[in-house]
């Protein structure tokens, strides 16, 4: 099924854009904005606003139509491979399938101090009506909090004989999360620990796809709830056992 953006008529391809160009406002600037958008393949380009941002910058709002379509039926998104379970089911699963408590260590690593997302997954009180991992009787959940160096996280993992690491990365300016996450995987591999751990990351700009690419076992983005994460961890542990 080929789909296109929709403004007010099916497949009209209508889209809104806004951007800044490093030139003073004027007829030429407006034309430059138009040509730029045109060159991207848009048609019926209409520059509906030009504003003076000062210091030789102009702001543009543009409406245009794209002839581009996408075959929706061909889209497939890698998804975390785990059956969704609830609080009781997960604890029961651990008792049945793993037979001992699962040790999970979480941290906001590097210089990241955004703990709210990780806390949503781990804290007793939980998030959006779902208990956090600390409340799970069969999980030992250790939250190291913010700005934890990768080295410290690994040291704690060894100390507690962890089954799983949960890493949160929220600051993504200039892609600062990428080297930070990559370094953790490298350090774990160097220590020969990578395969002993279920390695999970999360944050508003993290997708499962990205996580896999960086060498993690799973990645969780916005809207994640604690049981999503716990379901994956315990099923992955059980898979590895077998």
């Amino acid at each position, binding site marked *: 099924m080929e789909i296109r953006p*929709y*403004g*007010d*008529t*099916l497949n009209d391809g*209508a889209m*809104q854009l*806004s951007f800044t160009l490093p030139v003073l406002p004027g007829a030429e600037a407006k034309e430059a904005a138009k040509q730029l958008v045109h060159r991207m393949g848009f048609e019926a380009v*209409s*520059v*509906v*606003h030009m*504003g003076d941002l000062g210091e030789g910058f102009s702001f543009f*709002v543009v*409406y245009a139509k794209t002839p581009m379509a996408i075959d929706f039926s061909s889209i497939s998104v890698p998804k975390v491979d785990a059956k969704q379970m609830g609080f009781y089911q997960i604890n029961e699963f651990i008792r049945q399938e793993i037979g001992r408590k699962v040790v999970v260590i979480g941290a906001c690593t590097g210089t990241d101090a955004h703990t709210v997302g990780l806390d949503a997954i781990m804290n007793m009180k939980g998030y959006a009506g779902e208990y956090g991992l600390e409340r799970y009787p069969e999980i030992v959940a250790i939250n190291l909090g913010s700005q934890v160096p990768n080295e410290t996280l690994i040291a704690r993992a060894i100390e507690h004989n962890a089954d799983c690491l949960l890493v949160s990365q929220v600051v993504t300016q200039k892609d600062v999360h990428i080297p930070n996450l990559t370094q953790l995987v490298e350090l774990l591999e160097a220590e020969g620990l990578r395969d002993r751990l279920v390695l999970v990351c999360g944050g508003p700009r993290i997708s499962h796809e990205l996580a896999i690419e960086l060498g993690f076992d799973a990645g969780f983005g916005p809207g994640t709830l604690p049981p999503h994460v716990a379901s994956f961890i315990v099923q992955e542990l059980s898979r590895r056992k077998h």
Partner: protein
Amino acid sequence: MPKLNLDPAKVTSARSAAAGISQEIHTFIAAHTTAAVERTVARLFGIDGVDGDGVPLANRVVEDLVRGGILPRGAGLALGNACASLALTPRQAAEQIAAGRLSLAKIPFTPDKARAAADTHADEALRRIASQRKQRERLLAELGEGPRPYLYVIVATGNIYEDVTQARAAARAGADIIAVIRTTGQSLLDYVPYGATTEGFGGTYATQENFRIMRLALDEIGQELKRYIRLVNYASGLCMPEIAAMGALERLDMMLNDALYGILFRDINMQRTFIDQYFSRIINGYAGIIINTGEDNYLTTADAVTAAHTVLASQFINEQLAHLSGLPNRQIGLGHAFEIDPSLPDSMLLELAQAQMARQIFPEAPLKYMPPTKHMTGNIFAGHTMNAMFNLTAVLTGQGIQLLGMLTEAIHTPFLQDRYLALENARYVARAARSLTDELIFIPGGKAEQRADEVLGQALALLRRVEQLGLMEAIEQGIFADVKRSRFGGKGLEGVVKQAPDYYNPFIVPMLTKKHLNGGDA
């Protein structure tokens, strides 16, 4: 937002000046009829459809009356006469006329039979309309409705089927009212197009079939959402009463219907408009349809600060004329708008004062509050902020009907996403601020009160002048919206005729007396 301290004597004087103005015009109206009024009678008699050339049968009938010189007697009698004499249904008569096989003037006229037949056919129409009205009441009771102000959005793709998609999505996103905007140019057509249409510019043709398609879609989604979704279209134009009749038959819930709009903004002849609006409003009134007047339009050509009083003056006139058509206050959706230049200091204060003033002067009217339009630009972000301030003003001053501003107002008729964002904006603001309405008050004697008093005073002076001149003369002098229109200029004058002494419109009395609507105007 309780009470500006307004001078009740000024309000009373303004209202009585408007009543005088309306009475005077009414004497003129009562002695005339128009082609559109008589086409409406024909339509209400069941004469729908078009002939082989695509000309509506109702037009064919009236052409025949004109040719036969009996338009001044009214289509009701002529058709009643034909039906009684020839044992035809009105529709059959119309088909024969269109086929050139019948001419109404040629049938011997038997007044009593004609009148009795007219009444019989009228009664059928009245029953259909009454039952639509009761259906609306049933659905409202069953499904309920959104809180006030009702959120009102437009669809205007030009294609009724795209309109349906957009309307359904809007209802899901929280819209209470859907208006299908009309294509440019329709208001100047002296006939109503026919059938489902997919080709309009800046709007979709108002046809009875389009009304039906949208009504069905909104009833369906209303059932799903358990919220009655109101449907709006436009009466104003050269077919004002005809479209009102179509709206009554297809259970529209509101109609744009302004006594002056066509004159000022579409250069439709004023005699024609006054006569047409009278009957169209009688129909709206009977059908339980809320009218929306168009005072917002003044502010698209004139300045919202200096011309604020013209809006108020026009509201008074629209109110009084509506009363003469039997519309109760709760069906009079007087228009006004948030159109003050956002670059002015205190624009929000002035808007609040104006909106609150209107609220108090017309306490029972479901005021229709229009968003910023003319100061909207291609800067969609700045526009979205203005809309938020408008939404807040609407909620704080307890407006009845809140037409939502679109962030793309200066660009295109709304995209699906534009309407969604508008509804999201309005719902957030209402949720956040609704109870501030009862929490905040204006300080007595403050700027807001002074401003309201000033506007009221100017409106009163204007109304007094119009009363002295007479409304037609006042319009000739360009007192409203800076537009001058001559009594004998504009479109549609040829359709105006003086009633014959035996003129009869079988709908006026039963509709004004709310026949079949047990409990009077209930």
